[in-house]
């Protein structure tokens, strides 16, 4: 059972997410974004979207960075003062994030008819799972103290063993069931990426920082014509 949950399930989740993510991008690019409802409802969105997005981004980074560079994380956390400060910041951030999420959930309820009009059933599932995940995360932070430390000796080795394709579940099965639950919901959310609006995380347009302001597209590019290249734009260029 543990093998199914902590070996098979994470692999399936990631493979499905990547596979369907690529499929959706190639075959149905039109839907590869999140449906904004800001035009329809502006005021509540501010109090929901802003705390949620900033909060969850920082929290996810706080999960991701120790995973990628555990050595550096271990050094930073070795000092008890720094550990306490970081844990407190983390807790405050998660409360901030939870506040945003609560506003977002209220906003999508039938009481707010405009935002509700553009809410799909998947949005409902997603909001529910995100709420479960956020509050279980707060629960972990409160009741299983010093998570930033034990994370390094349990979750991190397990995740790396999955990456190396030599799964070793001994570090996770020792954890309390509540933490295991938080981990599994996390992978369920990863699984949902290509099937929900979460996909918009992969559309963050960093290219905007570099591109010129103006975009001009030609069927025949006059500047390149003399170089023998006539066709520069189109969906299916002739061979």
């Amino acid at each position, binding site marked *: 059972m543990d093998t199914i949950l902590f070996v098979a399930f994470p692999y399936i989740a990631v493979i499905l997410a990547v596979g369907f993510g690529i499929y959706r991008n190639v075959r149905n690019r039109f839907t590869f974004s999140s449906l904004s409802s800001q035009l329809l409802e502006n005021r509540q969105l501010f109090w929901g979207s802003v705390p949620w997005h900033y909060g969850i981004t920082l929290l996810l980074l706080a999960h991701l960075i120790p995973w990628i560079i555990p050595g550096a994380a271990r050094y930073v956390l070795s000092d008890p003062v720094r550990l306490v400060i970081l844990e407190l910041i983390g807790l405050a951030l998660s409360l901030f994030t939870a506040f945003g999420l609560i506003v977002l959930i209220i906003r999508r309820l039938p009481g707010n*008819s405009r935002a509700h009009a553009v809410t799909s059933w998947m949005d409902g599932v997603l909001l529910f799972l995100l709420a479960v995940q956020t509050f279980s995360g707060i629960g972990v932070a409160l009741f299983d103290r010093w998570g930033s430390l034990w994370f390094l000796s349990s979750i991190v080795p397990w995740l790396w063993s999955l990456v190396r394709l030599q799964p070793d579940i001994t570090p996770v099965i020792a954890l309390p069931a509540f933490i295991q639950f938080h981990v599994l919901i996390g992978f369920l959310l990863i699984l949902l990426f290509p099937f929900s609006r979460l996909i918009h995380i992969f559309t963050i347009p960093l290219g905007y920082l570099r591109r010129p302001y*103006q975009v001009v597209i030609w069927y025949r590019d006059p500047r390149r014509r003399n170089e023998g290249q006539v066709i520069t734009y189109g969906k299916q260029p002739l061979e």
Partner: protein
Amino acid sequence: MNVRCQVSMVFHLDKCIGCHTCSLACKNLWTSRQGTEYMWWNNVETKPGTGYPTLYEDQEEYHGGWEVKDGELKLKLNTRSKELLNLGFNTRLPSLDDYYEPWTYKYDELTNSPLQQIQPIATPVSLVTGKEMEIEAGPNWDDCLSGSPIYAANDPNLRSIADEERRQLFEMERVVYFYLPRICNHCMNPSCVAACPAGAIYKRGEDGIVLVSQEKCMGWRMCVSGCPYKKVYFNWSTGKAEKCILCYPRLETQQAPACMHSCVGRIRYLGMLLYDADRIEQAAKSPDHELVQAQRDIILDPFDPQVIREARENGVEDKVIESAQKSPVYAYVKRWKLALPLHPEFRTLPMLFYVPPLLPVTGSMNDGIYESSRDFFSSLENARLPIRYMASLFTAGDEEMIKAVYRKMMAVRVYKRAQTVGDIPEGEAAEALERGGTTPEEIDDIYRLTSLAGFDERFVIPPFSREAAVELVHLTHTPAESSGMGFIHAPERGL
């Protein structure tokens, strides 16, 4: 020199009767789908008025367009990195209430009504939520100055005129308004393109039409905020930005856009302009009062042999150059200098130009006696709409420039009246001519194109040979749904 050509337009406001036929032609063709009901790619607003969406001209609020900061041309909206930080919540987005909530009626309540003493009423139903609603605003809610204490009185352009003038403006005997039809300006220096984080909006090289790639658009909505004219709209149903496409499928088959074709007052002109793309940034950075002139300067003379040579080198076809020579837009904008862009101070260098309305003096109340002025066309100081108001609309506040336009328009009227009716003394006509800085020949040309021009003179559309260009990049013999332009799938949202 980097010669590009562009389809551009002139709207002659003196001829607009505010019938909204253009708006309806456009709506029927393009925006009757779900999510687009509230959009009017073409709208006609009453001036003075707050426009559509309400107060769109107030860039203190919306931060649309460009500004010059430390000698550099920058988006007024945000720096690029700040824009990315605002992706989760766009701080400068108008809400649906700034446009209006679209609705329909429960018509079956009329047909199924039982016999009763009072007339049955069809209840309005929101097209967004499907629920019953109170109608609080609608398209052209302020048409012909209706609700003017709320709408017209708050026109941002009235900030430039004195309180006394403003009071007089709304006096019953003097009350005055005109219509301002607006479509996308297809700007030379579009700020919607520059604000799009996804790079989905682009300007077509061959004809300058600004379009949104529906597949690249991620629905970040920055174009809506970036456009100072609020002519990019957000489709709440598909989550994509949509805007006026200048009826390019019609243009490519040499038909006039629907709004222009259907124009009852024949106020619309369309033709090619050649311009120097290398000088766009320089022109857009000019000081406020030089913007109109700077834009005129980079519009090139299509008869100049050097311009023709450079245009050919850039791949502009001979037929397009030929049509640029016949362009009514070139005549109004550059040759006669009668047409001006709307709000040049937004620095997007709009390619839709307006001939301002003349609004002659008609009358005033003196001691309870209504007197009509004898001085119909020649007094700028008594103009019914303050010159300063018109200047804040069309010349970024430069009164001299708009006065020059008016003097020439008056010269045309006075001269033609002297010629055809003959009740104006010879000297007066000659004086008007001199003040307008014009000649009888020029006046005849202006008169012809303004009053008598037929369809083919108002819309000079070259053959774009787009179909030939398309054949280069698309397999035309493959079955539908596997190749071709546009959507291969139905444009439906996923979850």
